[in-house]
């Protein structure tokens, strides 16, 4: 087998966000605005700490985008001109049980991750009598069923030493009840801690060179994956408990914070969220690979995805990697969903022995994803899909659970207008399309034809 195929296969791992070398800036072909540039500007210009929401489809590239933001902040890139930031990416699922989470634990997870990263990257050990004293409780709350031999672990060792806790929900509940009464104290203590970090930054380095960092930016990734908050029903009720009822608390940090939030929720109650967080949520739409009206190819978007493929293959020209027909086929059926495109490429490398990857291999690769979509659509949902495909408005009611489910399992994809000429989020207007694979399924075609007939 061709070495290039092997390398390309392994360079397209669906579980790993893009590395800095692999990162592609899709801004102008996603529409919806310039996330990194605008958030940095807000950090720089705002007197008060910024707390912002960030959302997008599963696998649309949110983590890659957040990693890139962290990279920009750390290297003090051109997007953040004034202040220097120490970014802390908190992977919420490293700490939280996504089916039994609480606001309190989110706070604790943030503290633990800040402590860990300051220690690892800057050699700074946080000193806080309060957290030291509370450590045993925090540890048991975040890592409840893990046996710990060491009696006293410093705060920063939490994740590294203990690993993820696994469902032991009863003992966690008792502990949580005890800690909950401390919640107001906890947020104050965290803020004192954040202020002391800024002070440490300011003290640490020689004046003439200027401090290495001035402030901290907390990026809470994968918070959108929380399915259930303790004591709440799963789904919408839990999401509201977290992002609406919890907004006050999440806004209280004396530091810039970005939280990831589920796309369906943003689409359902966007104005309310805007009021609570003081700014509209940032949305990372899918890359546009086709137009809104007649699914006509959108070449700019396709070129960007091709660029991504080249960065992963570390080879040019593209014709050496994949034939134009093969590439077109993958682009036609990925819907601009970045992870799906990568999975196609990865699969296509297995369907051939030689480069360039040909059309036949591309077809086989796409074929292997069909079941992923065909198997999830319920009988009553075909009609909804047909309706969307035939509608002129291309709008989608995310308050309807059956429709929201289709958005969440990627049978329906969200796109945005705006793009190359529009750089502000206010100009962005979402629209929706049925996934191109779903459009080829027999039951979809039947439902669409039936609906078309009824109309005429």
């Amino acid at each position, binding site marked *: 087998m061709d070495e290039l195929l092997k390398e390309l296969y392994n360079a397209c791992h*669906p579980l790993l966000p893009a590395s800095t070398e692999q990162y592609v800036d899709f801004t102008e072909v996603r529409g919806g605005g310039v996330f990194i540039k605008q958030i940095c500007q807000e950090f720089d210009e705002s007197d008060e700490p910024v707390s912002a929401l960030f959302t997008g489809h599963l696998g649309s590239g949110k983590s890659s985008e957040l990693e890139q933001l962290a990279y920009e902040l750390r290297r003090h890139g051109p997007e953040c001109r004034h202040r220097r930031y120490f970014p802390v990416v908190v992977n919420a699922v490293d700490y939280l049980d996504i089916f039994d989470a609480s606001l309190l634990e989110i706070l604790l997870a943030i503290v633990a991750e800040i402590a860990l990263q300051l220690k690892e990257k800057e050699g700074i050990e946080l000193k806080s009598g309060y957290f030291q004293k509370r450590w045993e409780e925090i540890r048991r709350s975040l890592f409840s069923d893990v046996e710990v031999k060491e009696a006293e672990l410093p705060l920063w060792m939490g994740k590294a030493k203990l690993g993820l806790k696994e469902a032991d929900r009863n003992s966690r509940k008792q502990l949580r009840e005890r800690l909950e009464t401390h919640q107001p104290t906890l947020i104050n203590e965290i803020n004192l801690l954040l202020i002391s970090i800024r002070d440490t930054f300011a003290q640490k380095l020689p004046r003439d060179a200027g401090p290495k960092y001035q402030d901290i930016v907390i990026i809470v990734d994968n918070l959108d994956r929380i399915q259930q908050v303790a004591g709440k029903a799963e789904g919408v009720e839990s999401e509201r408990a977290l992002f609406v009822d919890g907004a006050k608390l999440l806004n209280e940090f004396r530091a810039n914070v970005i939280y990831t939030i589920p796309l369906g929720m943003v689409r359902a109650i966007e104005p309310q969220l805007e009021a609570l967080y003081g700014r509209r949520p940032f949305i990372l739409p899918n890359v546009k690979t086709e137009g809104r009206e007649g699914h006509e190819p959108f070449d700019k978007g396709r070129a960007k995805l091709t660029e991504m493929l080249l960065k992963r293959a570390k080879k040019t020209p593209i014709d050496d990697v994949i034939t134009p027909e093969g590439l077109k086929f993958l682009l036609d059926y990925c819907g601009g969903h970045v992870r799906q495109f990568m999975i196609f490429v990865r699969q296509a490398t297995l369907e051939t022995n030689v480069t360039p990857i040909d059309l036949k291999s591309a077809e086989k690769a796409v074929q292997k994803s069909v079941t992923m979509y065909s198997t999830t659509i319920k009988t009553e949902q075909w009609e909804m899909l047909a309706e969307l495909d035939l509608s002129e408005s291309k709008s989608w009611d995310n308050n309807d659970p059956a429709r929201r489910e289709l958005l969440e399992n990627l049978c329906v994809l969200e796109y945005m207008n705006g793009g190359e000429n529009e750089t502000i989020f206010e100009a962005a207007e979402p629209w929706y399309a049925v996934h191109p694979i779903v459009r080829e399924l027999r039951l979809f075609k039947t439902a669409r034809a039936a609906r078309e007939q009824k109309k005429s």
Partner: protein
Amino acid sequence: MTTEAANKSDIFNPLLTDNDSQRATLARELRVAKGFTLIFALCNSAAERAQQIAALRSELPDLNIQEVPVRTEIPHLLQHLRHTLETPPPDAVFVYGMENWIRSDTNPRSIPFILNLNAARNHFIEDCPCPLILWIPDFLLRQIIGGAPDFASVRSGLYVFAASQNEAAKTIETLEMLGLTEALGLDLSDKHQRIKEIEQLLSRVKHLPAENRNRQDQLYLIDQLATMYFAMGRYTEAESLLNEALQLRRASLPDGHPDIAQSLNNLAGLYYSQGRFAEAEPLYNEALQIDRAALPEGHPGIATDLNNLAELYRSKGRYPEAEPLYHEALHIHRASLPDGHPSIAISLGNLAGLYQSQGRYAEAEPLYHEALQIHRASLPDGHPDIATSLNNLAVLYEIQGRFAESTALYREALAIVERALGTEHPTTKIVRENLDTFLREQGE
């Protein structure tokens, strides 16, 4: 393998898969993949899965493949793997068997096994440092996408293995045709006797001058004779009779008369049992349309139509279309018939068959049991429908590896059909073949 470009609609037909080429690509992925790689291998049949795994092993002799069967409930796959994974880690780990305890009608977000897949997603990289292949029926993929969307979304390959036709042929489906249950219950000499009687009556009716002929009697006789031939497996004779009956009814009755629907069902049933699905489908559809318009809601005749059309969809692998029809049929039967009526058992058995084709074993089993119970209680001893129930339950046990339970059921089923249908009847042949294959495989 042909080399011309694939037909576009074939690419998007999830039912069209070629097991050998799927396996070849999977083998290639196992060679290339480094570290944790999530691969789904969809296979609705436990027996087919075992064959595919054996084939992979022989094609990849240098790879160390560890199999981890999970036939009883565990809450946490990754934790389970932490304890069971060999050191050093194998080149790939195959996990299967969850269909024995996960049901498709349970909310996936209440199944700890599925929830924990999602929760622990990011930890698979460290704790399962090799490709993880989940061998699951397609309903379980749906459950995983529903309850562990983040886990499912980082999958790499997705391979679909169709169950072999042999296995589908092991299960005996029951079509509902007028009088068929009764006809099947007769022993061989009674059947011969009955056929002779009907043929004599029919030839007498036909020799009457047209104006004296009782059209209803004539049609009744034709149907009866066709049913007898059908029960004897003499399909050619049955077909021409059923065609004749349909033509006569279309000519003499107003459009949309329920008797036309009955005639359509009978002819379609015959096509169906010969595997002539394309011819059967429009007839079943027309029958259902007629009955829905002509009969009151919840009439058992509608259930019959639904059941027959569902059987057809199931045979073609169109499971999502079949399921609501089966459910509606069962609902109608339960609401309109007395408890323990054989039609309820037929509905149950057929729905169970659908579940089995989808790998939904945990749901199929109680339905088969109920069907068998009803058949035993409502039919005379030795009725072939009892044997059908026995055979189908035996098949389910066999593919689950529950061999001891399977043998006894096959033997009892065979004894019944041999006595009731003779040794050369297609049903008898199926049961005998099932038992023989089973014993041969067990003997190995």
